[in-house]
């Protein structure tokens, strides 16, 4: 016993390092901070207040970039307005002709970005609207350019949004032109990757990528980005498609939260199936 105690005392640094590493790994496998429930809402509220307090501090480099980007967007929007006016008139005529009822529009809640949190390129944004404004976890967040991400947590007055630039985010997407379905994931840097598009299909640089109707987390047909490059992957039957996101995450200031959550029934069923498969694999 004496020798054991001496051994522990002698190598206590290494022993404690191993034990704490095991605890940390166990915590990682247990899940993320979203499981902390009410405590997390408290943290989100506190963070939101603190970030709002420092939001007035300007970042000159970011402002300059933002100005350039806004000018560019302004030009593009002017062109789009002209096209849309024409399309709107045509659409109106066609609707009348076909006696179609207007599509039910989503209800949007405008929100300001009061905080941008970057942890080694994993990005979250904090909004100045929370559960008191009807915002709930799971709601989609968009701008005029396209999809930003989804709400992952709320407090009374603030909400945290997980952007597409995140390791954990996968979005069911499709090419707007060919309706080919794939999965969007972050490439770890400045672009997104569209997976699972077979080489047998034709994909053009510049093709628009939108959310798919197969998605259980995002509403369909929200623009995500445009195809930047298409390279056949020699090790698989799919292309490696790089997508340039339409939303410039670094310059976000105003966003819209879609005040509807995608239907959860399908997601619940799929999660139950996934859990069942995991149990079968792990034998637990």
């Amino acid at each position, binding site marked *: 016993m004496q020798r054991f105690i001496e051994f522990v005392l002698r190598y206590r640094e290494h022993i404690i390092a191993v034990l704490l590493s095991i605890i940390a790994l*166990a915590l990682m496998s247990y899940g*993320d901070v979203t499981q902390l429930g009410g405590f997390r809402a408290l943290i989100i509220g506190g963070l939101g207040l603190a970030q709002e307090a420092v939001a007035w501090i300007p970042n000159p480099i970011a402002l300059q970039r933002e100005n350039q980007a806004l000018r560019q967007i302004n030009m593009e929007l002017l062109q789009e307005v002209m096209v849309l006016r024409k399309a709107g008139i045509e659409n109106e005529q066609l609707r009348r002709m076909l006696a179609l009822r207007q599509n039910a529009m989503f209800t949007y809640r405008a929100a300001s970005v009061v905080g941008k949190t970057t942890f080694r*390129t994993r990005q979250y944004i904090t909004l100045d609207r929370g559960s008191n404004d009807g915002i709930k976890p799971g709601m989609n967040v968009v701008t005029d350019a396209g999809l930003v991400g989804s709400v992952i947590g709320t407090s009374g007055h603030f909400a945290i949004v997980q952007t597409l630039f995140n390791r954990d985010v996968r979005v069911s997407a499709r090419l707007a032109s060919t309706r080919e379905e794939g999965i969007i994931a972050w490439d770890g840097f400045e672009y997104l990757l569209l997976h699972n598009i077979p080489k047998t299909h034709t994909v053009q640089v510049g093709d628009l990528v939108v959310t798919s109707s197969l998605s259980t987390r995002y509403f369909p047909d929200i623009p995500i980005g445009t195809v930047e490059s298409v390279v056949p992957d020699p090790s698989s039957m799919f292309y490696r498609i790089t997508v340039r996101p339409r939303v410039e995450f670094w310059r976000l200031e105003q966003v819209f939260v879609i005040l509807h959550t995608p239907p959860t029934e399908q997601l619940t069923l799929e999660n139950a199936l996934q859990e069942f498969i995991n149990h079968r694999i792990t034998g637990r």
Partner: protein
Amino acid sequence: MRGIGEYGVYTIAALLAIIVGTIASNLLSVGGITPDLLLLVIVALALHKGQFPAILFGFFSGLLFDIVSTDVLGSNALVKLVAGYVAGFFWREEATIRSSIGSTRYVGVTLLCALVHNAVYSLLYTRPADIPLGEFYVKNGIAAALYTTALALLPFFYASRQQEEAL
């Protein structure tokens, strides 16, 4: 500033590092790269107090950082305790807080720990995703380590000047 008082100072410094790193990360970010302020505190504590307290401090401060930053629970706890473990090998028994931070060793150990810390984090981060580890580490790990080391120069210059004045 002895005993518990010294640990109190490190605890306050760690809390400040977590708060600043969380709420002002966008202001500190350069090209998407952010420094690790908490790592500076852990390395200072390791050089001053030794490996054992640095491991414990790294683990618990990292855990707090995970909770505040909404990162995967346990990920920062692991990498921060690894950083404390590595930095602890450079501890000297006669070290004081000024001699620990006011020495060029502090800057060197910070760079080493930041490189190791970011390597482990990159491994954890890229493993479940389709992100190339090497490329990710070169861009984010090394760049972030250099940024953190550059910030370590501030307490280093301050403490070395204090040391000179004391002599």
